[in-house]
């Protein structure tokens, strides 16, 4: 099989005959389309792709991808995918989940998958709301938000998914946006190239229950002022006229205006492989501060950790090399035995 030449795929090859059941205008459509076209280019045989999802609008995703797909139960996709990936490391396993599925009920499986660095690519559709259950707040909803379950506003401080993932020792963390097709495709490719867990937060619009949640990041004109695209090895520059930059100041970051003395050389140059955990953490939190942009792109990419499934399987190989493959006969007769004669 491996030797067979890879078929040439097009986006169409990854579409299914299933009627898509998202609301018209839902951000999920854009993500689906990006994934379908990227998958045609990844050089992986279609039968080796698997999508595992939990429950939620986002988790309907596998039905629309013409790959192997498993729409499981709420919050458990990372655990199910771990069992699959560990026992079938050759498969290319992707997880699709939502802010409720991954960060509310599934929070524990998510952080454990990340610390173990299981070779799974996780697409977190963050619409800051429970869509499928019709509009309750989620762990990423802003505090004070009025929703079906909080008519007087929430009292919960939200998670910052990137911050949580980094706190859980994630080796690859990125962020993109449903409507930034090009950027999203690039990000998906980088994630797929990563060895180990890749956690990708995709800012997604739920036009029914949380419309415009991300609009100051996506609106044509606001966009360039409120978003900064991280690129490995390039200085942190943003702004409509690319005239703003971010500079280190002690342990702190500051936004600076380029010009009169301040040049690109003064700016922080993005290093997605930065060895210090705090580096990515610093970037993850900058959006919370007035005047700072929201970073998108690859925030951290650590390649020097062997994926969990490889560690497990090489341990098995080592033992088998040392002891030889297990012999059932021997196993049953191990230890003290005695014979009863007729």
């Amino acid at each position, binding site marked *: *099989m491996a030797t067979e030449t890879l078929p040439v795929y097009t986006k169409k090859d990854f579409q*299914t005959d*299933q009627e898509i059941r998202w609301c018209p205008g839902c951000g999920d459509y854009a993500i689906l389309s990006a994934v379908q076209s990227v998958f045609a280019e990844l050089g992986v*045989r*279609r*039968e*080796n792709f*698997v999508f*595992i999802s939990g*429950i939620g609008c986002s988790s309907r995703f*596998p*039905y629309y991808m*013409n*790959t*192997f*797909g*498993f*729409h*499981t*139960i709420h919050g*458990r996709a990372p*655990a*199910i*995918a*771990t*069992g*699959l*990936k*560990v*026992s*079938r490391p*050759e*498969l290319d396993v992707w997880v699709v989940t939502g802010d409720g599925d991954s960060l509310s009920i599934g929070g*524990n*499986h998510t952080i*454990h998958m990340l610390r173990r660095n299981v070779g799974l690519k996780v697409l977190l559709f963050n619409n800051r709301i429970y869509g499928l259950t019709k509009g309750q707040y989620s762990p990423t909803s802003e505090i004070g938000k009025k929703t079906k379950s909080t008519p007087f506003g929430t009292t919960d401080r939200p998670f910052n998914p990137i911050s949580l993932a980094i706190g859980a020792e994630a080796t690859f963390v990125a962020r993109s946006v449903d409507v930034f097709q090009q950027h999203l495709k690039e990000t998906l490719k980088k994630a797929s190239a990563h060895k180990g867990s890749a956690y990708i937060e995709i800012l997604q619009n739920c036009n029914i229950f949380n419309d415009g949640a991300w609009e100051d990041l996506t609106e044509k004109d606001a966009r360039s002022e409120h978003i900064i695209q991280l690129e490995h090895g390039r200085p942190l520059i943003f702004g409509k006229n690319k005239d703003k930059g971010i500079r280190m100041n002690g342990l702190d970051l500051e936004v600076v205006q380029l010009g009169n003395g301040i040049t690109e050389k003064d700016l922080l140059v993005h290093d997605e492989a930065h060895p210090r955990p705090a580096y990515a953490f610093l970037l993850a939190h900058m959006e919370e501060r007035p005047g700072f942009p929201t970073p998108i792109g690859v925030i951290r990419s650590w390649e020097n950790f062997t994926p969990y499934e490889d560690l*497990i399987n090489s*341990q*098995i190989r080592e*033992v*088998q090399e040392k*002891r*030889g*493959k*297990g012999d*059932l*006969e021997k*196993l*049953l*007769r191990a*230890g*003290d*035995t*005695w*014979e*009863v*004669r*007729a």
Partner: protein
Amino acid sequence: MATTTINAAGRKREVLDTAVIRFCGDSGDGMQITGSQFTNTVALYGNDLATLPDFPAEIRAPAGTLPGVSGFQVHFSSQDVFTPGDTVDALIAMNPAALKMNIADLKPNGILIVNLNDFGDLDLRKAQMTSNPIEDHSLDGYRLFSVELTKLTRAALRDLGLDNKSVDRCKNFFALGMCYWLYNRSMENTFRWIDAKFSKKPQLVQANRMAMQAGYSYCEATEAFQISYEIPPAKLSPGVYRNISGNTALAMGFVAASQKAGLPLFLGSYPITPASDILHELAAYKDFGVITFQAEDEIAAVTSAIGAAYGGAIGLTTTSGPGMALKTEAMGLAVAVELPLVICDIQRGGPSTGLPTKTEQADLLQALYGRNSEAPIPVLAPATPGDCFWIAMEATRIAIKYMVPVIILSDGYLANGAEPWKIPDISQLPEIPVKFEKNPVDFKPYRRDPQTLARPWAVPGTPGLEHRIGGLEKQDVTGNVNYEPLNHERMVRLRAQKVEAIAQDIPDAVPVGADSGDLLIVSWGSTSGPITAALRSEKFKDHKIGHVHLRYLNPLPKNLGDVLMRYDKVLVPEMNMGQLVMVLRAKYLVDAQGYNKIQGKPFKTSELERKIEQVLAQE
């Protein structure tokens, strides 16, 4: 019956059918090791036997206190043995706490060996005793041997130059040596074990050997012991035997199943007493390619196993009651997506955290009904420690053949209890055929095999079989999401039929004893031993009593209804409040009565005898 002979030294040696010995002491006194050594020795000698370890819920409660007491009972005989024994012939109590907790089970005039050096005031206070039983005549009804175990052991090891702490750790071997003398057993096997165990610490090899030897010689020398016993070998069916506990048997059974099916075994588990040992054992079998995944919780444990099964491995998860409760939602998913999966519940005392180290049978209804909506799952239960091996293979066979999750209900007693087990000839192990779907032509994920109603096992990586499954209701055949009323009813009934049909694939219920008549006793799980033992009693020889032991709880054997009708009365002893009896009454409308013991301990043969007499007497 017993025959007595006089030996050279003028000592009596009595030949007995059977004997029950119990070692008890502080958790730090190594009673579990002592017990297992004695067990192996009598086993190697050819006795039939059963053991009952009993350890505290605490890791190590303060030395000398009541909660810290640990015990190990061995019932060995020249006859068939079905239980660890109701009462003990010889009790070795290393401290007052152990004495207090165990003396009630010693037979009148039974042998009682205590460590005199551990009966100081402080020791007594730790055991919450106000007077010293060794002096207050409360033990007059027994053959008391107060031995200065500590002192004698120290004396024996004086020249080794070991610190007292290490020396005192050897006193259990001194006691073991005494018991070997008492039952005329060779110390060879234990010597070999000591050599292997401490191979890295020659000094300890020395120490433990000498301690045991000293104990043996002590009995030889002192006049105290005027009599010793001999229990001749049992007539076991020919073959090679080993001792096996239920958890070990389960672990080996799954390895065997994996080999026979030619599929990798994936265990997703989260530690919990008394199931953890299965994880420990399977984790050691890497040479068999076994993958053990210690998950973050029970939900991840079962779901990871589902993921592995989806990928074509044997998905296994092991737990006990509280963990089982956490897995139920995921089990429902396995039912809906129809993937093979095996779930082992090693039952313990409950409710909630309950009595973690004690045994119970109260998860049957949870296993049968503890899921949202209609989610039928086959349920199997092993009868003895050795049977766990066969149940593991059978559960795997059913799971794969019918594409269905299967539950195994073991319990704390089976898990830790041991019995001699005849090692099967692996060429005679059952086959476990596996067929992965390969053919993409007109592939339908929910098109069923007309015989088994199983859907195809179409694993990722198979060209042309790309498809989607999930927990939403599915259209018959295509497997597409579908909410149509009649399709739903059809699917619910298909899932039920598939499980029901397994009744065609399992043995009929064949009563042991009378095939019809006065009384039928129905049992499941670990109660089979004491019931079998009780039914051997002379008392019942003029009654027509049958015994059906159920290894399959769902579906039940197809002829069970007929069998039940053939007896005037039906009695169902269970270590719960009456779970199987409820299922039988509902299904067969038979006026079966329950006999329920829920004390964290197996039934005693005597308890069952009494109950059976009662029931027979009822009008």
